[in-house]
């Protein structure tokens, strides 16, 4: 039974990751042949790094990802703080559901509706380029906020609700209490929220496609436009780099999270062992 389990797991993992592995493999192919691996080389990476368009797009993507992640982290965290103090359960539930809509909504609907709004407002304001960096930033920040909120608000629930009071009691002003006590307690949630927002922005295609203008292209859009002509292995190289970047971020966020978890589990075990000892004695 155990061997069957193992085989099954390996099979599933293989199916999940085979496409990516093939992609990575062919990014190191020495020719543009998509069927046969003719030899290992960094040719396509060199080719990629020579392309100015790819670099501009990479820069754009990073600028957009970082700025939208920062903005959404700020707004999402503030929302979590504000909603925690709200007493009315119904209003709280309503706002939480509304906050989550951008996440549930199909990307294509969000994308089209945002484009419509930006064009509408842009026309009203008499703007030439109705879709630009700012519209993209607004769009990305919008769909990132729920991810931050969903990571931060459980941290508040886990936190002992008397902690802020304890800080006030010991002489903190409300502002000091927040920065000295509450912020450290929710910080890991904020970091996770930020990283998820960053990666979400990094790999978004659908919404960006509708909300970006001609002068500000992100990597996913560039790749899409490149594939319209002919798929060359430098796109594989680019994709490989993106996968590696996102993988690194995920591993980092998991490591920071699991360190805490492990410490907690260890503490719990110790307590249980002590309790058992006491019970025996």
């Amino acid at each position, binding site marked *: 039974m155990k061997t069957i389990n193992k085989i099954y797991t390996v099979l599933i993992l293989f199916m999940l990751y085979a496409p990516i592995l093939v992609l990575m493999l062919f990014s190191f192919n020495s020719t543009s042949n998509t069927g046969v691996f003719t030899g290992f080389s960094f040719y396509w990476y060199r080719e990629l790094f020579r392309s100015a368009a790819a670099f501009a797009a990479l820069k754009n993507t990073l600028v957009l990802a970082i700025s939208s992640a920062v903005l959404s982290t700020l707004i999402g965290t503030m929302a979590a703080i504000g909603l925690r103090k709200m007493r009315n359960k119904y209003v709280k539930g309503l706002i939480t559901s509304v906050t989550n809509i951008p996440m549930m909504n199909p990307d294509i609907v969000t994308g089209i509706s945002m484009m419509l709004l930006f064009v509408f407002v842009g026309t009203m304001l008499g703007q030439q380029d109705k879709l630009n960096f700012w519209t993209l930033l607004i769009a990305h920040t919008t769909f990132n906020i729920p991810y931050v909120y969903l990571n931060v608000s459980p941290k508040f629930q886990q936190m*002992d609700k*008397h*902690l802020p*009071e*304890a*800080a*006030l*009691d*010991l*002489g*903190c*002003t409300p502002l*000091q209490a927040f920065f*000295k*006590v509450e912020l*450290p*307690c929710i910080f890991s949630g904020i970091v996770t929220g930020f990283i998820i927002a960053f990666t979400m922005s990094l790999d978004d295609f659908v919404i960006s496609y509708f909300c970006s203008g001609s002068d500000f292209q992100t990597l996913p859009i560039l790749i899409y436009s490149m594939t319209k002509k002919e798929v060359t292995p430098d796109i594989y190289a680019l994709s490989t780099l993106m996968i590696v970047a996102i993988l690194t971020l995920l591993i980092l966020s998991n490591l920071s999270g699991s360190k805490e978890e492990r*410490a*907690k589990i*260890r*503490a719990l075990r*110790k*307590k249980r062992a*002590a309790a058992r000892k*006491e019970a025996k004695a």
Partner: protein
Amino acid sequence: MKQEKVIQLQNISKSFDGEKILNNINLYIRDKEFITLLGPSGCGKTTMLRLIAGFETPDEGTILFEGKPINDVPPYQRSVNTVFQKYALFPHLNVFENIAFGLRLKKLPEEQIRKQVKDMLALVNLKGFERRNVERLSGGQQQRVAIARALINHPKVLLLDEPLAALDLKLRKDMQVELKNMQKRTGITFIYVTHDQEEALSMSDTVMVIAEGEIQQIGTPTDIYNEPVNAFVADFIGESNILDGVMTADYKATFSGHTFDCVDSGFEKNEKVDIVVRPEDVDVVPCERGMLVGDVTGVTFKGVHYEIIVDIRGFKWMIQSTDYVAPGDHIGLSIDPDAIHVMKKSRFSNMFGDYSSFSDELEKLSDLSEEENE
């Protein structure tokens, strides 16, 4: 002995969501006193503590601290500190930093902080625990850190909100003694909130019994135990048989169909009263010598004594005796005059005091639901 009044509550009322939690509370707390606010869950005792700490503001009335009103003073400017029920230690700081928290805010020099924290750790018996993670301490140790964190600020008044509720029985007993010693050593006024009457009696200089948002009785532990003012206090503090009685004359009380000699006077002739008889004050005697006679319906061995339930004219008495009697036995009871305590009728009359539905299991169940409510 004249002592300064450190805290006074004047005509304090407080409601939450339209429900009156505290109703016109008037009290004062003397300096250097160990006072316990005792009452069942939801009686308003924690609210009273939170008002003094400054986490809540009263709807009506004034809180005075050393004679000055402090209604509008925020908690961080009051010289009171709180030990929270679940400790509320800062999980991101180690033991040292938790205790040093208040001093760091006052921007004391590092050396002074180090010294004071060290002294504090010695006071609470946690020497060498400086670098420990607070989440990995046992309940009792966390408790000590919480106390040290509050005491290091040299508050005028220390507020303790059921600080021992989460500890197991043995540890709780030890901590009771330690807390009492700490209070004596530091000379700080302790205001202690609990629903555990035993804890209240064994630790306090003064006990304040609270029910339904009102103070029922204030007094020393012995006063509260021996001279409860009404059926609620009598029932809540210790075990009591509470009966309907009539004062036929001074020093004469009639209940359970017998007229007893007692030590109370000053009631009107034939005034209806509540009679309290503590289970340990009743003697089991042969039927013919008994003032009252009844049938034993239940016996429980409690270690020090037997707990005997006796049916007398349909009223179930509880009696504690070191001598065994068998269920079904016909026994007599004898009560000394000074064991009979007479109370005026109150709105709590006839709500307590009969042991017909008494069982240990039931008591535990109700304890559990109390904890969940909190």
